[in-house]
């Protein structure tokens, strides 16, 4: 029972990792940027939802936060990331987003305080659905559904809409897409916003589960990196798979060897890199 409890816990945390990794991977694949500030934006999303909730309730905060964060991404990309595309190498965008990670954490801290805050979720979602399996709460099911819908919507967007098709094409060969007359600057800005939308969504849902804290993003960003590496570079489904895998693995480990539950994520990454250097679903030649 304890094991089942921890697995379900791990699964939920894994969904947060997956959502974060999905946004990061989108940005990585089209914008060629490792967005270190992803965690900072996630935290900001959680706090935005918190503030909105205090005035208008949970059901208002849930949709507002992702849109606010997504819009920030859209403008941030335009003014800060875009000037860096023409610089050689990837170091500068890395440093820039790293700087923003520090700034965002500090901003969250000075506005909302260093202390953790509780994030209220509606009673309807708060009760266990089963007496035996007490850990299957309405909120957990809700998280599963929202994540599945978000991921499903993303894949539908990428497959069936014109913009989505362009984003996917740009991930393979940006120059050709540009040569075909597509405004790749707009496309990249939009994609950055889309990635941050997912970060905002992850923020709201993680807040309902883990509470609010200025460093919550820091705790999720690196497992999201690992999810991408384990799942396979250049694969969006891989990011989800990787996130779930390490979430559950950490959950199982916490049953038997609690103090290693954080480290085990990185051990799994090491093992995967030894035996499957491209990750579980990675494509040939990416990042090599």
């Amino acid at each position, binding site marked *: 029972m304890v094991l089942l409890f921890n697995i379900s816990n791990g699964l939920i945390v894994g969904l947060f990792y997956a959502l974060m990794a999905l946004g990061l991977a989108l940005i*990585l694949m089209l914008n*060629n*940027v*490792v967005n*270190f500030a992803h965690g900072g934006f996630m935290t900001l999303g959680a706090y935005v939802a918190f503030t909105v909730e205090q005035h208008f309730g949970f059901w208002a905060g849930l949709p507002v936060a992702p849109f606010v964060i997504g819009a920030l991404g859209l403008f941030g990309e335009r003014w*800060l990331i875009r*000037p*860096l595309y023409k*610089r*050689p*190498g*990837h*170091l*500068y965008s*890395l*440093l*820039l987003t*790293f*700087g*923003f*990670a*520090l*700034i965002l*954490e*500090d*901003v969250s*801290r*000075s506005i909302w305080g260093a202390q953790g805050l509780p994030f209220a979720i509606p009673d309807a979602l708060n009760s266990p659905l089963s007496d035996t399996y007490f850990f299957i709460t309405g909120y957990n099911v809700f998280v599963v559904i929202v994540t599945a819908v978000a991921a499903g919507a993303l894949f539908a967007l990428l497959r069936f809409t014109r913009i989505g098709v362009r984003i996917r094409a740009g991930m393979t060969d940006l120059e050709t897409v540009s040569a075909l007359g597509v405004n790749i600057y707009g496309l990249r800005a939009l994609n950055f916003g889309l990635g941050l939308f997912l970060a905002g969504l992850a923020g709201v849902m993680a807040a309902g589960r883990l509470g609010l804290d200025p460093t919550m993003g820091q705790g999720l960003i*690196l497992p999201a*990196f*690992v999810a*991408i*590496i384990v799942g396979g*570079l250049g694969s969006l489904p891989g990011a989800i798979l990787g996130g779930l895998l390490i979430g559950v693995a950490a959950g199982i480990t916490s049953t038997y060897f609690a*103090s*290693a539950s*954080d*480290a085990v994520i*990185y*051990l799994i*990454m*090491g093992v995967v*890199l*030894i035996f499957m*250097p491209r990750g579980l679903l990675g494509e040939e030649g*990416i*990042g*090599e």
Partner: protein
Amino acid sequence: MSGPSASSATLPRTAPASASRVAWLSRHRQSVIVWLLLIGAPLWMPLVGSYIQLGSQILVFALTAMALNILLGYTGVISFGEAAYFGLGAYGSGLFLKYVMPSTLLAVLAGVLLGGIAACLVGPLIMRRRGVYFAMTTIAFSQLFYFVAERWNGLTGGEDGLTGFQRQPIDFGFARITLEGAGFYYFALFFFALTAGVIAAILRSPLGHTWMAIRENVRRARYLGLRTDWYVWAAFAVAGTLAALGGSMEALLNNFASPQDLFFIVSGNFVIMVVLGGMGTFWGPLVGAAIFITAQDYLSSLTANWQSFVGVLFVVVVLAFPRGILGLRRGRKRA
């Protein structure tokens, strides 16, 4: 006058010895100034309102930033996980002093070995990655070591860090050096000089030339028949080993090792020191570390939000000084 070149033509013909000395000085002017400033620091630092412990702290970080410059500036790969090897060096030395033997020099060796071996082992797993993926993988592996340090309470003291060890005076038989104040500064300066010497020597060697080739054009280097992955591994191993030496100094300076030493934020700080001073310039990391540590020391006494200022520093450096302070002077582009 019929000197062989314009510069020697202006020198008196009768003094070839002093002429060559002048030429040597002008070629190495930057290094001479740096060494004079470093050796004289215990004298001049108090005069400008600073203190020598800050000087020691700058040396420790400068040493590590110079090690990182091997990767960022000379091999052209982005490591964002150097704090791991720095921190392992700190724990290696601290644990040795606490549990094995109260010998400062052997403790340094233990720290260097621990961090160096870890870097050697991680290297093969990351050396095939390129660009941002290399950065991501280095940072992710650094977190493995961070969590070991933070969670293995019984050995490492967990979140609170490792305490209960004390650097010991060094006894040569004929002389005894207490490592306090300026004494520790010169102890750290010795290892800093050792590091600078090792790096300078390697950069002049075929291995250093090979790193340069990888930085300049990795494809071309492969077409020459070079197995570039393994040279990246060598760079990672050397950088990690020297970073561990820096970490060992850090533990001895504070008589304390913290899991925060391994945290990825510290890795980012090392990167910004290198970029601020000038990637691929020999003294850039020292300049960057001096500015960063001084600013951090000043800001953290002034405001609780100093982390924002550090973040702003990152943004300003990226947007305004991408080549760094010494890189501006030289004007050679670096990727």
